[in-house]
């Protein structure tokens, strides 16, 4: 996985300083994300080991967000990453832009607190009124209620008033419009009643409505924030900056935005190429899987053109930048991505569609009630009171909760399964899909080669090769190194890496080479050279004679086959899009039983494919990880990316799954579809409630007590129905675990 490779190189001191925030003087604060921290012992270890470092002022772990804030002073950043690594925690630098508190969340929580305080106190006074307070006492209670309701209305209701005003200004309708209208009219009418010593006031209804709705809204926000934090905490794959070699041979670490064409950059092994450029000196192998989707590393040398986002694997390179970051390959992908944005921006959420229909009906019903009572009795005060009672009873408490509460429960369930959902509309869109497009390298496969002929290689030779391979970061070497551990092989002296070619080692006068056939087997001209990687490309030689041949295959993601079978079972047709060669695609497609696949696609080709399917009336899910998939992720109706995806894609995708198994895709689909069903049930409950309550209201029989009971009951019913998702989802995951067990071992046994 790309993640493993980048972890080899920890951020330099200059990069840490770049990503930290100055607190005045020479004090800096750096935020690190440490995904593996989970208990008191972890907190203690991290805080004490970091605290003991020189220049470190304090270190504080936040267990909820799995982050560590370190304050340090001085110019050089302390060796935070090396220290954490030694204690067994892998850390990622956190983005500087995402510093700062979440203002929306604290605003929402404050609003909930104020609304809760007001609702509780007003309800106490209302209960006294309902239980028979009369005359001056009742008026006093009403006045006190009116006073308490004011701050709640401004402070907590402001969120709804602003949202409603915003929607109306853009000529749209959302659920907040009827809420805002209902709450403010209820307050105005109650105030009028209070002034005129009236009997019925609806202060409790308007405030407790706000309170319930705010709880739903806050939960929704918390869930999305948790997903966002988890995605942000993943290690950053794009370069943050690069070491620039000045003419006077001074070296500066510059942030990526300041790198201009013509600058000479040093790229160490394990770093990503920051901008497009040409190689001035050095040989190396580049992992292009994120950029082009090719699974086999490409070997490069002097004069080769390289693109931003490629990973330098084996040797240090000096390159000349030919484009600034804003004109590099990455930026081109972002432009394509913005141009492709379409499917999701035109999608209207279920709640908005329902309210566009619901609000006019309700407001019309209230108006007709008013006119009807006017015509019947001629008493405008009475007609007004009843009309407003209709508005209050239909005020969409249940409707406002019907959608978000289901999505909160669903998102929480997905979160537990390691799937992050960006927002509720993503689940609504996922439930609609009929076609799933998969990228190959890094999505269906791990983008990581696996040795497939280990059993046919002499164990001694394999052990020697493994010993040599342990000295390299090349993906092929890593695959071979996994077979080490035998003893009895000659001890190696002086292992050296020849970037772009392979490894060389000396033992008792013999020269061993592991690498490209043409280079390692210089005595055996077999005609296999020139072929990059693939079968027969990599050999182990002793003094130039081939001793063993290694064959690799891109390892297929765990459970990929089972996941695809489940998707097909859910009525989704599956296709594979790849930038890799037809041969590599055919192998993976064959192994996974995919019938339709398109090889050698450019990023724009993937977008066209998605758009063609969309025009044909399909709802497309795109699952991909590379930079080259990003525009297609944007063009699709809904998109998913693994945690190992390129940063842009990860930030864009609607769903990000953190675990390796591809079963995340059918699980997300199942839960989204079930959530969609529950949302429709909840909407039906709300409609039934209205069908019962509205005639009572129109007939003029609603009192504040009845309104309070009816509204709470319908809300509880809707919440209770949403909770069924939790139970269903648990049953589903148990079932998939019991199915997944034997099936996945079956796949392993085959391979």
């Amino acid at each position, binding site marked *: 996985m790309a993640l493993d490779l980048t972890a080899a190189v920890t951020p330099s001191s200059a990069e840490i300083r770049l990503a930290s925030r100055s607190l005045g003087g020479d004090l800096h604060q750096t935020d690190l994300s440490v995904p593996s921290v989970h208990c008191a012992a972890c907190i*203690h270890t991290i805080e004490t080991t970091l605290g003991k470092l020189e220049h470190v*002022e304090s270190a*504080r772990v*936040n267990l*909820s967000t799995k982050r560590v804030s370190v304050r340090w002073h001085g110019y050089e950043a302390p060796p935070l990453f090396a220290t954490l690594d030694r204690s067994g925690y892998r850390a990622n630098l956190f983005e500087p832009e995402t510093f700062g508190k979440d203002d929306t969340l*604290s605003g929402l929580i*404050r609003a909930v*607190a104020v609304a809760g305080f007001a609702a*509780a106190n007003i309800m*106490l006074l209302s209960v006294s009124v309902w239980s028979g307070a009369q005359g001056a006492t009742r008026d006093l209670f009403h006045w006190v209620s009116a006073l308490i309701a004011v701050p709640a209305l401004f402070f907590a209701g402001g969120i709804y008033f602003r949202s409603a005003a915003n929607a109306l200004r853009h000529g749209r309708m959302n659920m907040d419009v009827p809420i805002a209208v209902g709450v403010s009219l209820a307050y105005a009418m109650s105030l009028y009643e209070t002034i005129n010593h009236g009997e019925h006031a609806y202060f409790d209804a308007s405030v407790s409505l706000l309170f319930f709705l705010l709880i739903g809204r806050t939960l929704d926000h918390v869930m999305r924030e948790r997903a966002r934090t988890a995605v942000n905490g993943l290690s950053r794959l794009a370069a943050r900056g690069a070491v620039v070699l000045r003419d006077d041979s001074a070296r500066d670490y510059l942030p990526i935005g300041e790198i201009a064409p013509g600058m000479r950059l040093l790229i160490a092994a394990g770093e990503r190429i920051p901008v497009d450029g040409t190689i001035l000196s050095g040989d190396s192998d580049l992992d292009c899987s994120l950029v082009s989707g090719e699974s086999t590393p490409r070997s490069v040398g002097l004069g080769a053109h390289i693109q931003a986002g490629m990973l330098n694997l084996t040797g240090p390179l000096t390159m000349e930048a030919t484009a600034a970051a804003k004109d590099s390959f990455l930026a081109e992908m972002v432009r394509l991505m913005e141009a492709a944005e379409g499917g999701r921006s035109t999608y209207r959420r279920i709640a908005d569609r329902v309210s566009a229909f619901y609000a006019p009906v309700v407001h019309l019903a209230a108006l007709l009630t008013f006119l009807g009572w006017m015509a019947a009795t001629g008493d405008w005060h009475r007609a007004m009171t009843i009309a407003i009672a209709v508005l209050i009873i239909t005020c969409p408490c249940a409707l406002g909760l019907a959608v978000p509460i289901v999505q909160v429960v669903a998102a929480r369930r997905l979160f537990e399964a390691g799937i992050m959902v960006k927002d509720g509309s993503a689940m609504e869109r996922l439930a609609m899909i009929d076609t799933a497009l998969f990228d190959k390298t890094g999505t269906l496969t791990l983008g990581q080669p696996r040795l497939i002929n280990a059993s046919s290689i002499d164990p001694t030779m394999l052990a020697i090769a493994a010993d040599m391979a342990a000295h390299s970061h090349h993906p092929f070497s890593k695959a071979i190194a996994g077979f080490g551990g035998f003893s009895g092989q000659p001890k190696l002296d002086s292992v050296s890496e020849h970037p772009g070619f392979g490894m060389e080692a000396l033992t008792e006068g013999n020269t061993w080479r592991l690498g490209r056939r043409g280079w390692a087997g210089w005595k055996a001209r077999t005609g296999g050279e020139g072929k990059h990687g693939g079968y027969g490309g990599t050999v182990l030689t002793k003094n130039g004679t081939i001793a063993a041949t290694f064959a690799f295959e891109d390892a297929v993601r765990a459970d990929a086959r089972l996941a695809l079978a489940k998707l097909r079972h859910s009525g989704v047709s599956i296709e594979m899009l790849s930038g890799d060669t037809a041969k590599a695609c055919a192998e993976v497609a064959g192994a996974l039983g995919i019938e339709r696949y398109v090889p050698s696609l450019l990023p724009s080709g993937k977008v066209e494919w998605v758009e063609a399917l969309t025009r044909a009336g399909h709802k497309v899910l795109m699952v991909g990880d590379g930079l080259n998939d990003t525009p297609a992720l944007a063009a699709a109706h809904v998109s998913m990316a693994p945690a190992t995806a390129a940063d842009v894609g990860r930030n864009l995708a609607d769903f990000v799954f953190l675990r390796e198994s591809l079963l995340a895709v059918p699980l997300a689909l199942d839960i989204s579809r079930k959530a969609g069903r529950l949302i429709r049930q909840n909407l039906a409950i709300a409609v039934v409630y209205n069908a019962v309550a509205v005639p009572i209201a129109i007939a003029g029989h609603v009192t504040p007590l009845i309104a309070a009971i009816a509204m709470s009951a319908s809300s509880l019913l809707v919440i209770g129905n949403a909770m069924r998702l939790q139970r269903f989802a648990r049953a589903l995951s148990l079932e998939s675990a019991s199915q997944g067990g034997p099936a996945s071992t079956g796949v392993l046994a085959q391979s």
Partner: protein
Amino acid sequence: MAGLLYLIPAALLLGAIGLAGFLWALRSGQYEDLDGAAERILIDSDDSAENAPRSK
């Protein structure tokens, strides 16, 4: 009736104190790490000065 004149303000004042307390706790960052606080009581802090400075 006379009792209400001081009982209602007293009730509201108590509620307001609770609300103010909550808002203060929110502002001073006590809700930022709910899981961490639960685990931290298990740490034997032999040197209490070590972790004393709060990061937020």
